[in-house]
């Protein structure tokens, strides 16, 4: 078999609803690009990364996303974003699809027609030489997850919790295959948290219903997960803002002669500028991320994440496998970055898990790019990737159905015998 026939590069796209993490398998880190079209006040439309490089005023920006509730439904916009990602000079990848192996992620419970549309676009529109489609969790699982638990190596069974923009999904991977009957989806994601914060701020302080981006910044900078909700709630109620250690002053962004000064937390040591617009946040700082643990606070009839994890676990029929899963839990996704998330999750989960089970929770340093890192590691392992992918030749011979067969649900052998 002549070596010249092999494609020269492997490109991995972790296609999130909020951000795309993309790069060649040989890159150290991926490029993180917004997966949206944005339109600023001046009617100028920005595609993907243009939003950061070209948009000067983030107030009043509206967004259009190819994803809807966790399914990739709109290819007209996604193609524009991917074209820029793959071919533009500014992003600089200059991908040659003919000579490239592509790995792309899709949401775990996506409608089959959406997955099939992606297959057709990849082969018929871009013409990649071969392609592997899987969930982000499958790529996370490829990492050497042992490091997260103070050990080394990796297990073939792990429980991945991906808390992203659209939702939080719990995915058990058993013997390297996603076990779909136990996948669970909690409808609390970054979008809900941002919108809840926006609604709360608009009701209590300033109307910011048009300021999705600015509120998102506030959420990232000011919110945290509390370990004692009742205590912190009392503190915020009893103490006035000046004496409340939890209250925070946030300086809203404003236009200045030198450009736009970004929003930031006010430094109490510096003298305050009278032109600054200050937003004082109190219990919103922790009641917003609290929705991950108690969605019923806003009337959502779903259990919180620790209980949801146990719901997923109890859907796995074998007790030994359940123990293995709980011994290899990995948290990825932007929402896991809230300060205090780790401690709160450990405490609550430990209380729900039987004493005789060893619970090991893994929190990667970079939860947003950890999935891509797994994809890059897989990309460097030629034989492993080759066994999973579909080549262009196979696609042209058998049609899109071969992708559905090869990337579709696999039976998990160890559980089959227990039925």
């Amino acid at each position, binding site marked *: 078999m002549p070596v010249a026939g092999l494609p020269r590069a492997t490109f991995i796209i972790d296609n999130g609803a909020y951000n795309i993490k993309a790069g060649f398998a040989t890159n150290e880190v991926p490029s993180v690009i917004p997966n949206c079209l944005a339109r600023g006040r001046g009617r100028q439309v920005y595609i993907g990364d243009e939003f950061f490089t070209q948009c000067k005023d983030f107030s009043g920006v509206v967004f259009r996303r190819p994803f809807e509730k966790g*399914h990739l439904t709109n*290819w*007209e916009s996604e193609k524009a974003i991917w074209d820029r990602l793959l071919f533009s000079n500014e992003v600089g990848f200059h991908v040659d699809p003919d000579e490239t192996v592509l790995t792309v992620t899709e949401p775990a419970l996506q*409608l089959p027609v959406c997955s099939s549309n992606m297959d057709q676009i990849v082969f018929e529109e871009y013409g990649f030489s071969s392609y592997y489609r899987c969930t982000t969790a499958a790529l996370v699982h490829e990492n050497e997850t042992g490091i997260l638990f103070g050990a080394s190596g990796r297990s073939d069974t792990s429980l991945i919790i991906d808390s992203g923009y659209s939702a939080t999904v719990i995915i058990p991977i058993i013997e390297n295959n996603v076990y779909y009957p136990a996948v669970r989806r*909690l409808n609390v994601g970054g979008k*809900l948290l941002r919108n809840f914060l926006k*609604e709360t701020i608009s*009701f*209590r302080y300033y109307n910011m219903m048009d300021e999705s981006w600015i509120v998102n910044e506030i959420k990232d900078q000011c919110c945290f997960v509390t370990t004692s909700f009742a205590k912190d709630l009392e503190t915020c109620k009893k103490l006035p803002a000046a004496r409340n250690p939890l209250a925070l002053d946030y300086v809203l962004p404003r236009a200045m002669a030198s450009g736009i000064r970004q929003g930031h937390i006010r430094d109490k040591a510096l003298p305050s500028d009278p032109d600054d617009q200050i937003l004082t946040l109190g219990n919103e700082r922790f009641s917003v991320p609290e929705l991950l643990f108690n969605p019923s606070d806003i009337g959502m009839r779903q259990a919180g994440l620790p209980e949801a994890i146990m719901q997923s676990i109890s859907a796995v029929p074998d007790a030994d496998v359940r123990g293995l899963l709980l011994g290899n839990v990995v948290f990825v996704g932007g929402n896991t970055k809230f300060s205090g998330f780790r401690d709160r999750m450990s405490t609550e989960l430990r209380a729900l898990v039987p004493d005789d089970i060893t619970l090991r929770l893994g929190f990667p340093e970079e939860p947003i790019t950890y999935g891509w890192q797994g994809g890059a590691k897989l990309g460097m392992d030629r034989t492993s990737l080759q066994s999973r992918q579909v080549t262009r030749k196979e696609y042209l011979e058998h049609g899109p159905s071969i992708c559905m067969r090869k990337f579709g649900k696999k039976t998990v052998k160890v559980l089959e015998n227990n039925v």
Partner: protein
Amino acid sequence: MPLVELVTGATAVSTFAGRKNFPKRDGESHSVQRAINRRLADLERENYNDSVKIEVPKAEGSRSSGKSPAVRRILVSKKTLSNLFDEDETGTSDFYAAAVEPSRYPMRRLCSVCGYWGAITCIRCGARYCSLVCEDTHRETRCLKVYA
């Protein structure tokens, strides 16, 4: 605490006496549930103004689009998620079957105005508040939205 329970209990009885439809178990009637669902749908929006349409800019010198009829159909398709759900029953039921179930523990009640514990329920619309100050704010702003 017991006094509050007694008051709300008495109110419930007098409001619904003689009616065929009793409220749901935790005292939330169907109209209240509708309001909650409407609010949750609002919280799922991307932009506040739903009718915002952002056109994909036509790039100069872009690669040719729609090389095959299947792809052309995908690229011009204006189908939304609800259209796709209608078309695929199995996929939709798989998606919803994987939703996390309600909690075994009772819901916490927070004041809809200030976020503290909300012990008192508004008679008209079912929202919670914690004190007379918050009750005033609630009456002036958000109440009567459900009482249509």
